[in-house]
């Protein structure tokens, strides 16, 4: 299976349409891709020359991952053309792409946890001795060699599952290198790596490009992009927002303005809202590897947004406050009392309620009716658990359906039969059974249509007017800009920006989200 790059040359007799086939490795023209009604890619062009590193940048959902997965044969595009070294590329599978020398190393490696490191590296590309037997000695020797190039001296006999996130990332990269790529796609390879490991990875990338191999490098870290990339491509909303060749220094302002599209617009005049006392306060709160020392303060009746790139600890932070994750350090104050919840019940009793990330698995009992779901909080907190106040529960469900305008045939209807937006209203509505002081919402409009989205924010606004504090994590910044009084930005498990009023602009949020420029921050 393992062959040298020379074995993968263009089929003979295929005339190239590109002017300099020797230089251009990959040419992508007008790629489109829809997922259902969502346009992920809307005519993207990309050109990569041999021996160069292309930095692919963009906010969450801009289409970088989809584009790289299309190039790697994991996703079939709806339209557009691709050429590899002058020959058309129309692979429908990762295996076909690998045969042309296109290999991707994913951000979240899917290694076989029980298999040793060396077997993982050659899984699916086994080195075979005559007769079809795996040549263990050769495989082990090469695995050690590749890992050494990446600066790692890990024991290749240990199962991959025991490795740290960084170790697993290195194995994933080694896996890609073992397949002798002509084009290597690295999807956020450094997210789990420490500084020294990044330096060694970059050295390895330089050795590859010296051999004429092309690299597509996806990262959110602008510093790394500047250090390793020869060319830049910025994506926004499934389109190419800009592409240029770097000349040493990286124009960060240009990148941020291209990513957000609207550099200077202040989107929302702050509606002055009378704020009450501090209701929740976090000091140096830590939990696991996701929440690494968060300070924040929430006041009565405030709507606060939680922004940041994907996976910076936002969802986890909400779970910690809700009592669903254990606190490892720091203090959580509710009013003027330090609390250490051991389960969500402890916080719910204090009026701190979570609308979780995954509606169907964490927020609802999908096999039960709308009424059953709306009444459950009352049942869970029942003071006399041997009774069941059916009449009261019925009234509660009917009142909640009316108040939140939940579109349903009635409380008897199965909750799974509702639309996503109405399911989300049920998840919010079930908390109306208690006195909500703080409502924590984790991506509440995920998979919800525009109309229901505005209704959900209207409900949040109504609750806030009545004194409830809302802390909302949403992946779309626009949404937060429109509905929040204040936006906190998270980066690598900490709050790095606290923006309000005129400072609450998309470029500033993006800058903070990339761990850059904390002007306007007073956190």
């Amino acid at each position, binding site marked *: 299976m393992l062959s040298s790059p020379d074995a993968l040359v263009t089929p003979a007799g295929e005339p190239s349409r590109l002017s300099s086939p020797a230089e251009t490795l990959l040419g992508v023209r007008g790629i489109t891709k829809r997922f259902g009604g969502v346009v992920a890619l809307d005519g993207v062009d990309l050109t990569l020359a041999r021996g160069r590193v292309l930095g692919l940048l963009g906010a969450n959902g801009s289409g970088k991952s989809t584009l790289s997965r299309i190039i790697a044969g994991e996703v079939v595009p709806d339209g557009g053309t691709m050429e590899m070294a002058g020959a058309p590329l129309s692979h429908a599978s990762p295996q076909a792409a690998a045969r042309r020398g296109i290999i991707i190393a994913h951000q979240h490696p899917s290694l076989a946890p029980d298999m040793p490191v060396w077997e993982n590296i050659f899984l699916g590309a086994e080195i075979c001795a005559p007769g079809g037997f795996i040549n263990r000695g050769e495989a082990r020797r090469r695995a050690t060699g590749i890992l050494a190039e990446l600066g790692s001296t890990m024991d290749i006999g240990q199962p991959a599952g025991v490795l740290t996130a960084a170790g697993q990332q290195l194995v994933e990269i080694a896996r890609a290198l073992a397949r002798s790529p002509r084009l290597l796609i690295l999807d956020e390879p450094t997210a789990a790596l420490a500084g020294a490991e990044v330096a060694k990875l970059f050295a390895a990338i330089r050795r590859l490009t010296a051999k004429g191999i092309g690299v597509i490098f996806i990262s959110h870290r602008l510093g790394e992009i500047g250090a390793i990339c020869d060319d830049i491509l910025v994506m926004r909303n499934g389109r190419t927002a800009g592409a240029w060749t770097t000349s040493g220094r990286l124009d960060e302002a240009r990148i941020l303005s291209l990513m957000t599209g609207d550099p200077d617009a202040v989107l929302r005049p702050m509606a002055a809202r009378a704020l009450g006392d501090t209701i929740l306060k976090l000091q140096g709160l830590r939990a696991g590897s996701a929440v690494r020392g968060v300070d924040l303060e929430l006041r009565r009746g405030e709507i606060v947004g939680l922004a940041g790139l994907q996976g910076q600890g936002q969802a986890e932070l909400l779970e910690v406050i809700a009592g669903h994750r254990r606190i490892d350090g720091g203090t959580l104050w509710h009013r003027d009392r330090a609390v250490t919840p051991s389960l969500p019940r402890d916080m719910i009793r204090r009026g701190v309620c979570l609308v979780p990330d995954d509606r169907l698995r964490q927020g609802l009992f999908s096999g039960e009716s709308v009424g059953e779901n709306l009444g*459950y909080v009352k049942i869970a907190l029942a003071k006399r658990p041997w*009774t069941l106040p059916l009449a009261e529960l019925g009234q509660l469900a009917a009142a909640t359906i009316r108040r939140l305008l939940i579109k349903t045939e009635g409380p008897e209807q199965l909750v799974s039969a509702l639309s996503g937006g109405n399911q989300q209203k049920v998840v919010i509505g079930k908390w109306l059974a208690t006195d909500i002081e703080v409502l924590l919402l984790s991506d509440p409009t995920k998979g919800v249509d525009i109309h229901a989205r505005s209704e959900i924010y209207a409900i949040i606004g109504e609750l806030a007017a009545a004194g409830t504090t809302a802390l909302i994590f949403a992946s779309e910044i626009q949404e937060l800009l429109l509905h929040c009084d204040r936006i906190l930005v998270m980066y690598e498990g900490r709050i790095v920006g606290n923006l309000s009023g005129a400072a609450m602009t998309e470029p500033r949020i993006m800058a903070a989200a990339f761990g850059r420029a904390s002007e306007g921050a007073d956190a």
Partner: protein
Amino acid sequence: MIGSSWGRPALLLALTIALLVVGQLVLPGFIGLGQIANQLKIAAFLGLFGLCQTVVIAAGGQGLDLSVGAIATLGGILGAALMAGSNAMTIVGAVAAVGAGLGVGLLNGMGVAVLGVPPLVMTLALSSVVDGGLIVGVSLAHPADAASPGLVAIAGRSLYGVPSVALIWAGIAAIAIWLLSRSAWGRQLCRTGANPVTARLSGTHTVRVRVMAYMLSGGVAALGGFLLTGYVGQAFLGLGNAYVLTSIVVAAIGGVTLAGGKAPYGGVACAAILMTVLVSLLTAINMGENGRQIIFGLTLLVFLMIDRRLGAQR
């Protein structure tokens, strides 16, 4: 309709009546009053152990209690040892038996809900420990093993033609049905079984609910073993063994889905009666143990397939 709360018991009762009619046709006298009373007695024990499984399976997380047999034996032997044949001490024996059952159930529940040991492993392990402990205890202490005359009267006799064990079972079943379907705790139990994450995030103390489920199972199993001692006349090692698997079978036939989240005890009680009648009919027509096992297994399979089809339609 078989899946709804009344459909299942109705179907099971209809099948029971059909079996009784077939029995009467094949063997005139099969529907004698004495016969029916006797079958109710046997069904009462099966139904009590079925309640244990109903509660722990409903609690979810692959819930199962393989220690009901050992706990029943413990309840019987401990109860017999304490009452030592005296009527006055019968109540003491009963309380001690149930207490011991609650204790073993507490250990089961802690292992499952706090330490995260799979229920199959946890209850099987404790079952071995209890069984082994009883062998050692009995061989060292040689305790009294006879049921008191009072207990024999309660467990073996009838009141106006109705066996008193069946009356006790009816009382417990009524409480159980109310607790499981008409109380907040029952809802907490079923929702914890159906989706422990949502239940926890909605304010349920899921660990406590699950521990209580295993305690309830242990307490009922020990009570079953204590009554069984009265029914048989004496306690002995292995007293409850026959009920470990049959209790799971009646729970499944009664409509408890092994995935958790459902506790239809009415159906389980009817299933206990149906299976008792089925076994006695098969015995009456001289079918051997092997044949009975085959029919038992096939009945279970048929009901599980019905459940799958209904589940797929929803």
